[in-house]
């Protein structure tokens, strides 16, 4: 098992197809509205009409697929009143369903929307890095599913050394808040964190 498992997203390969979302939903039989992985569309830009009835534009768009970042300093854990939310020796953050009371504080606290309330259970649920697959030496469902191989996983330190530590990427929050185990390869269109150039354009889908 990994010491600090991390996801690596290559945004130059991500088409926003959302196969990762469905692979996860299928594996976990998630009910409507519960998304362990969420693909956001971040879009911006403006249009200007010329006097010749043609157009200039500055449009850009890209997708970002985020599940749980199994943060080094998970704020969901510190906000949990029952200790249900915990980080284990393998770095995976998960919910103990013998303790969770469904107060949803973790949902408020997490800047990535990772903890997802399951109305059928009455408790919080979330990405657990497909611990069962990792134990068999197999990749998480989302990673194995990605048609364009944009999604990978591995040891955080190794991925960071190989691909860089760019995390100040819109629409992600400041990584210093929770220290996410996430490595992102920015693309041509990637905007810096805090940018006002664009916005999440598919809030109803994530």
């Amino acid at each position: 098992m990994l010491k600090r498992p991390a996801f690596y997203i290559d945004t130059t390969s991500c088409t926003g197809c959302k196969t990762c979302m469905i692979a996860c939903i299928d594996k976990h039989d998630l009910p409507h509205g519960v998304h362990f992985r969420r693909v956001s569309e971040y879009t911006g830009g403006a249009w200007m009409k010329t006097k010749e009835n043609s157009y200039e534009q500055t449009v850009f768009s890209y997708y970002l697929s985020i599940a749980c970042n199994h943060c080094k300093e998970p704020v969901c854990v510190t906000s949990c009143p029952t200790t249900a939310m915990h980080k284990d020796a393998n770095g995976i953050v998960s919910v103990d369903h013998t303790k969770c009371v469904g107060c949803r504080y973790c949902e408020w606290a997490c800047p990535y929307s990772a903890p997802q309330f399951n109305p059928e259970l009455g408790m919080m649920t979330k990405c657990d890095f497909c611990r069962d697959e990792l134990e068999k030496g197999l990749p998480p469902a989302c990673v194995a599913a990605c048609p364009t191989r944009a999604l990978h996983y591995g040891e955080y330190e190794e991925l960071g050394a190989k691909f860089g530590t760019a995390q100040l990427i819109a629409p992600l929050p400041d990584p210093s808040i929770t220290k996410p185990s996430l490595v992102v390869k920015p693309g041509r269109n990637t905007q810096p964190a805090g940018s006002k150039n664009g916005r999440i354009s598919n809030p109803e889908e994530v």
Partner: protein
Amino acid sequence: MSNEKSDPLQQNGGLTRREVLKWSAVLGGTACMSGGGLFYGFTKKAYAQSRPEEKTVWATCNVNCGSRCPIRAHVRDGHLVRIETDSTGDNDFKTHEIRACLRGRSTRRWISSPERLKYPMKRVGKRGEGKFQRISWEEALDTVASELRRIIDTHGNESVYCHYATGVLGGTVSRRETFYRLMNILGGYLNYYGSYSTAQITAALPYTYGKRNGNHLTDMVNSKLVVFFGNNPAATRMSGGGTVYDLVHARKQKDVKVIVIDPRYTDTAATCADEWIPIRPGTDAALVSALAHVIITEGMAEEEFLSKYCVGYDDTTMPDGIPTGNTYKDYILGTGPDKTEKTPEWAEKITGIPADRISTLGREIGSTKPCYISQGWGPQRQAGGEQTARSICMLPILTGNVGISGGNTGDREGSYGIPFPRMPTGKNPVSTSIPVFTWTKAIDDAGSMTDLTDGIKGKKRLETPIKFLWNYAGNTLINQHSDCHKTAEILQDDSKCEMIVVLDNYMTASAKFADILLPCCTSLEEEDIIRQGYAVEMAYMVASKQAIKPFFESRSFFDIVAGLAKRLGVEQEFTLGMNRSQWVEHMYQKCREIKPDLPPTFKDAQKIGLIKWGRPDKPKVAFKDFRNDPETHPLKTPSGKIEIFSKRLWEIGKTWKLPQGDLITALPEYHPTWEGAEDEKTKQKYPLQLFGNHYKQRTHSSYGNVDWLQDIARQEVWINPLDADERGIKHGDMVRVFNDRGETQITAKVTPRIMPGVTALPQGAWFKPDAKGIDKGGCVNVLTSHHPSPLAKGNPQHTNLVQVAKL
């Protein structure tokens, strides 16, 4: 039965998902797979402990997406608990994993949808009302057989039509050919030519090149510039074994500049475009003409190539008997009949692209070699689509990029695969063929259709109207065909088309028009031989197994057709004494004739499941032999060369009888069309262009009833913020999209990713008309037109003008 027209649950006997799953559990045990199944954590552990071992079975997703993804069906107690895909190893690009997309991954949810057909049904009430009564298979097959017999005896074999349908393309025995086989034994059936995907480009490009042909997309690693006209692999080739992965992989090998020309900032643009050039739908030929102007006037045209390999560029290579002023150069420079110079300024007003950008693009294309230019199939699916398709090819022709590595013909990227055999159909005694799109006229007004007015082939005039309509695995009866209301009207008259048989898995909009409705097995409920898709660069086969027993009374397609053969007295001739399983083995042995390295029997092959042969060492270069030696490898055109000016089209343009405004020209030209970007008259009332792009939620209308997919990829009409603001529309508002042909109501996606003046409503959403006929499903075809394109008589489904208003 209730009167609810739009509620599929009511028509289907009030079937809920829980009932579907409970029923399937009866087959294999007491396991209950409901929404409250597997959860993370404590619950899951307990669940897993009480479960016996799973079995994993190779199956496939068989829809019309261009690829063909293997899926691994995990089965427990007789039903599906999880879908995975090819995970046989991804280190070698030659035999990389063929990873199913989100649609294939939702198979488990799809096949247990509430709309699943349970048993044979016959219509009660009017056609299209969707009111059915359950009948036995005996009665169903008796009825179909006797009606087929009666109609053939009364009206002849040309009155039988096998509708264009692509819901199931993957299998061998469960594929359309099995019914063609029966029909050919019975005397034949009316043919169609063309397809809803490619009618215009397939009709037009052979006049330029002799046939359709494109370099493999992976050839772009040898290019210095890539230009996509309306080519969107991220939405139209989504398989992880298909073109989108080829594209992403190629970009990793070489960071070649990619320009995407499209009315929308597509997902392909988001992934790999260095530049997006927004263009008004239907105006690509105008853009190309202006680019040609820049290339020609600035001395970048490859005169030697044009002289050696082409006909019609200038006076030196024109065919005999054509008056002066009709060369391509004349057309572009304004010395032709229209006296209009096709400058960037001229094109700016039409396309919406600034003139200086057109100029610099012309210089880029003219001076960068090799340049890979390709078009998707959106630009040609227009009222003037034939002109668009031939025009785009002019860019590689002018710049000498045809037949070289890193170049391309301008056609869509080419593909590779092993041509495993299809079910033997015999020869169709009927040679008459209609354009694939004009079947409603063949029902309604057949006698007026001739070779010169309506593109009838094999006969001068269509003498017999369509009386028997067979619709297997397709939704083009109503959902995917233009002008739903007009189509419904024609179908509803059962004195015209007297018998409609629909075979499907779900109660689709088309299924509601059946007289007899038959439930078929899905690809997970029967074994078959499945080969690679038609738009991939890798050869493979899946010897699939039956993963789960057929739901309810679903039957295999072969068994259904064999049942008809028996009743029609041709059982032995049709089956050759073999049952379905024996036919699978029989066809497998025919596959072994092509690939002797396949395992000895189909059962042996099933033990392996997915068998790959990989991809060729080098990407294909279209017309490479012609480019190397045009004398010994001429094209299949009358001159043997690239025909920029086609004398055949010159003749056709003069002899065919076309409606006012429709044009067929010898050169690739731009002409404004009805409801096009320049139709100022119609724009008074309906100012916005509309087209129906392909979209990840579905493959056409397949998977259109899966709630998982509807949840995460919503059906929405795309509208630019400038247009939305004018109408007081905010993102997420319910809006009406309407024109004279109908109205649909759907949520609005207000986004800068589409041009002002243009809207897009993804095609394939299920038609759900309310009591007033207003569609609530977001089905674009309530708005599209029956007016066929001039040469192909093809579907102009992207040429529409509409208005959008807040609901």
